[in-house]
Each structure stands twice: as structure tokens, then as C-alpha cells.
């Protein structure tokens, strides 16, 4: 699986359904065994899928051979981090999930502003930088005439959002919670 096959919401839905069927039973069994609830198992699995998605769309996505084992490993670590205070005694093997938590959270206020007034730009920037889609996919997804116009639009949007972040950062504490 690579980012090219996950370029649309429909493709991602099929991808996530497949992963639920493949790995959620094992994760739920583990959480149940550890005394957790169904809701906790769902929360943990959602986060594990997010971690896996980011790994898949990254350049080195093909390193995961066994998706079920990977998701179970991530889920175990997330469970120990979030719900068990004695996780200090656990092995640090496979603890590569920190990569998703290295950034400051942005306030709901700024995110809401960007998601409403600048939604088109945010979707374009998400596709380019977060989903790391090839430019050719970006062209067809957003109906650009070619890669040049898509590139120009990307940088214009980045400039626009950067300006918004700058305005907000004039009162920095306001958007870093």
C-alpha cells in the first residue's frame, strides 16, 4: 500500500475498513485482557490507525510487512502510555509512536478559523504535505490544469496560511494551548 492508492476519501475508507477487520479483534482482545473497556479499545485503535496511516504515507512506508502485528504493537504501547501508570517498566522496543506527538497542539480557535474560511487551502495543503500525494494526484483531485498551476496554488495557500498563523502568533499564547 502506498500513498498513491490512498489519494481519495473512498480509498482511505476501504483501507481503514480492511484494517479494522484484520487487526481490531486482536487489539480488542488485548485491551479486554488488560481490563479495559470496549470504548477504550476503540479509542486506542483509532490512534493506532492514525499512526499507521502516517507511516504508510511516509516515504518508507513499505517497511511494514505484517499490518496486524504492527497495529497490535502500536496499540499495546498506546494502552500502556495512556491507561497504565506502570508503563515505565515496559520495554522500549517498537516505541516509534512518539513521532506523532512532537508538535504543539494548535488551539481550536485557529483550527476552526482555518477549517472554515480557508478550507480549500487547508485541503490542498493537507494533500500535499500531510498525505504527501504525488503532484499528479493533486492535479486531478483539485482539478488543476497542470502541475505548474497546482504548485503555484500550493505556495499561494502556504503563504496565506502562514500569514494567518503570523497574525495569530502576535498573541502567541492565544493559539498554543
Amino acid at each position: 500500500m502506498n500513498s498513491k492508492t490512498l489519494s481519495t476519501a473512498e480509498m482511505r475508507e476501504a483501507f481503514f475498513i480492511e484494517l479494522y477487520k484484520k487487526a481490531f479483534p486482536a487489539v480488542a482482545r488485548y485491551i479486554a485482557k488488560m481490563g479495559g473497556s470496549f470504548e477504550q479499545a476503540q479509542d486506542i485503535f483509532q490512534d493506532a490507525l492514525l499512526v499507521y496511516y502516517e507511516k504508510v504515507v511516509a516515504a518508507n512506508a513499505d517497511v511494514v510487512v505484517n499490518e496486524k502485528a504492527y497495529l497490535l504493537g502500536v496499540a499495546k504501547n498506546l494502552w500502556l502510555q495512556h491507561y497504565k501508570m506502570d508503563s515505565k517498566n515496559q520495554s522500549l522496543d517498537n516505541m516509534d509512536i512518539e513521532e506523532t506527538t512532537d508538535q504543539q497542539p494548535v488551539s481550536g480557535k485557529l483550527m476552526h478559523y482555518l477549517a472554515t474560511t480557508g478550507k480549500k487551502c487547508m485541503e490542498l495543503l493537507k494533500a500535499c504535505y500531510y498525505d504527501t500525494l504525488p503532484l499528479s494526484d493533486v492535479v486531478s483531485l483539485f482539478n488543476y490544469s497542470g502541475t505548474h498551476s497546482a504548485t503555484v496554488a500550493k505556495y499561494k495557500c502556504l503563504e496565506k496560511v502562514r500569514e494567518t498563523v503570523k497574525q495569530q502568533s502576535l498573541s502567541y499564547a492565544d493559539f498554543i494551548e
Partner: protein
Amino acid sequence: MNNIKAIDDYLFGNIAPGDSLLFEAKILLSTALNDDVQLQKDTHAVITQYGRQSIKAEVLAVQKKLSTEPQHSNFMQRIVNLFKK
């Protein structure tokens, strides 16, 4: 488009090592450029967070689908049963 592309190329390692060193020297010599680089890093953090929220919403929609659509009811029920004492 100001220095947006140049900063992006630097941040994502899309320039030759020598050019990267030169860019770092420019950052050291220019407070304005240094501020713009930091601002662009913050902007990419915002994009990442937006992306995460968006993908999480898609995952939640899938979870809801599995919980409510008849063709998946056996699958979810078997998992719910794991938590019954």
C-alpha cells in the same frame, strides 16, 4: 512569492548540502528570514494537526459504519462480546 518556496526547499531537504549551509548562514545573518523560517515551521505544524483531525474523522466515520451497517453487525458484536464479563 517571497521566500516561501526557498524556505520549504530548505526545511524539506530539497536543496544540495552546500546550498543548505549557505541558507543557514543567511538565517543567522537575517532576523527577518529567521522569523519567517520559524513561522513556516509553525505553519507546517498547523497543517499536520489539520491532517490528523481530518484522518481521525474519517476513521471515526468508518467505525460508525462498522457499528451500524447490517453487513458488519456480526463483526462488531463479536468484539463487543469480548468485554462482557
